[in-house]
């Protein structure tokens, strides 16, 4: 069973953390992953940096730009992750835009992910139907879970369809927005979380976008399986580098 599915079965609210590979320093990848696991994080999204991250806000954009400047490449990331499964057990996903994956070759990319022990992918600009028609078989062949996003604007019908082709979790974007652009959740979001929960989907939902502290984590996970933190953690890395990762994580889950 895929590590993601196993993790989702645990009877707890999951905390997942996103970071951009190659940031703040080129060689920080494994250190960050290890520290995150040791701090009690449940799942990690390793960001493959992209020159034009159009679904991301300024914080993640800037980290991507810096990571590329530092020299991060797809090959290097796989190199860095080669031995990761010697030390790390929690699920690891790669989150990245479609073009670098396409240039690498989708099949090669999936194969390589499998080899280094990546469990799933989140590719915001790979549309559901293109995935379904062209890539689903490849992903599955290499044991990869592909994670789709839904937003408050996603129709019921489409949510059901996405649920039907998902085999891990659904990435629930807290509000229509790029990453890092929210502060705190209002009634609207809570209703949305509840509305989706009431759908009783096959796949559990994990909330992303706008989670930055204990309060928002609790709000986000009240009706869902877990939450993903991105920009807030990138900010921590900008300020403190790879230090005190555990205190950041503890501040979220208390």
């Amino acid at each position: 069973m895929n590590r993601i599915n196993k993790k989702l079965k645990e009877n707890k609210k999951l905390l997942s953390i996103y970071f951009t590979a190659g940031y703040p320093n080129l060689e920080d990848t494994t250190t960050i992953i290890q520290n995150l696991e040791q701090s009690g994080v449940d799942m990690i999204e390793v960001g493959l940096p992209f020159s034009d991250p159009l679904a991301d806000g300024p914080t993640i954009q800037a980290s991507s730009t810096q990571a590329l400047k530092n020299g991060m490449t797809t090959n290097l990331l796989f190199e860095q992750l080669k031995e990761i499964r010697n030390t790390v057990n929690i699920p690891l996903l790669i989150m990245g835009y479609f073009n670098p994956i396409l240039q690498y070759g989708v099949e090669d990319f999936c194969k390589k992910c499998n080899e280094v022990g990546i469990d799933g992918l989140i590719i915001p600009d790979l549309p559901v139907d293109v995935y379904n028609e062209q890539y689903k078989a490849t992903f599955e062949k290499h044991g990869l879970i592909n994670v789709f996003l839904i937003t408050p604007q996603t129709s019921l019908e489409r949510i059901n369809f996405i649920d039907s082709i998902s085999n891990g979790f659904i990435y629930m974007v807290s509000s229509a927005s790029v990453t890092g652009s929210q502060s705190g959740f209002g009634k609207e979001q809570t209703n949305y979380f509840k509305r989706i929960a009431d759908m009783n989907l096959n796949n559990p939902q994990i909330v992303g976008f706008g989670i930055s502290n204990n309060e928002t984590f609790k709000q986000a996970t009240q009706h869902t399986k877990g939450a993903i933190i991105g920009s807030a953690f990138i900010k921590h890395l900008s300020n403190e580098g790879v230090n005190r990762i555990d205190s950041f994580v503890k501040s979220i889950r208390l």
Partner: protein
Amino acid sequence: MSYNVNKKGYYGEFGGAYIPEMLYPNVEELRQNYLKIMAEPEFQKEFNQLLKDYVGRPSPLYFAKRLSEKYNTKIYLKREDLNHTGAHKINNTIGQILMAKRLGKTRIIAETGAGQHGVATATVCALMGLECIVYMGEIDIARQAPNVARMKMLGAKVIPALSGSKTLKDATNEAIRDWINNPVDTHYIIGSVVGPHPYPDMVARFQSVVSEEIQWQLKEHESKTKPDYVIACVGGGSNAAGAYYHFLDDEDVKLIAVEAAGKGINSGESAATSVLGKEGIIHGSKTLLMQTNDGQITEPYSISAGLDYPGIGPMHAHLYKSGRAEFISITDDEAMIAGLELCKLEGIIPAIESAHALAIFEQKVFNPNDVIVLCLSGRGDKDLNTYINYFKL
């Protein structure tokens, strides 16, 4: 072989809608409605009336006598420079603003490179009383200052794009981010035949008035409706798409697309996508784009802000790959000289974008009897500083 879009939004293997889920409702709403709305008689009437009374269409098809004499062939200029706001861009913004109104949108965003699309968008927003936000690369803001001033006069908010090469590509990223953040009330008026389906097709259809007019205008001049060649510059490709549109499936009409070679194809400072690009995804569309082996999008360069873009629209990628259109690259220097030549021979100051198209007469020899239509996509008022500094006038 068809050179037009298929039902799924592809031109051959290019096109599609590679967009984050956050954009899906907006793009899908548009996809489901655009052809229906465009077919409504009320829409057609309003669109055509505005093109005529507000934009000043038909734009003339002008026989450039002295230019033709110099190059010993028959050159007609399709005068999109005479449109209101000074370029072809407004054909599209008129169409899209009417579309946006019918979709109930109240807030308009746009990206712009040369500023012509930004001005054209700000213009139609003023006309319809809608809020307008334009994203523009910081470098383009500096080199196209007159257009920035015009957008402000028209009440638009111009927001600088500070990331990447600080030009059109980055402005487009910012506009997409804005749209993600404002999914309900906002329509994104894309300025070229780029972006996710249905944008390339929708923009091409709005621009197709250019070749529609060429047909009957050429008939008046030459007693035939089709030219031997149609020539246009390609940034994203909208003026070219408009000029080619009604000739796409008629292979008697040769199509020439002119790209910006910047300081030279191999200089590392270029925007000649067809030569330097590979298949990939940019701004929601599978097309040709300039990128590293790793799939990072390259920062392009051209003296012309409107051509300073690392991709081309999927229609053009297909025209290139299929050989239907010939692609030629023109350097900064060649374009500037051709621009000045048009001033001196015909009394027309072309946009530097259009000057790239004009430069091909120094590259390629035509027959004396060839009937050539060149799309003069815009006027050079926005480029005066660049010209003056370049030629030290």
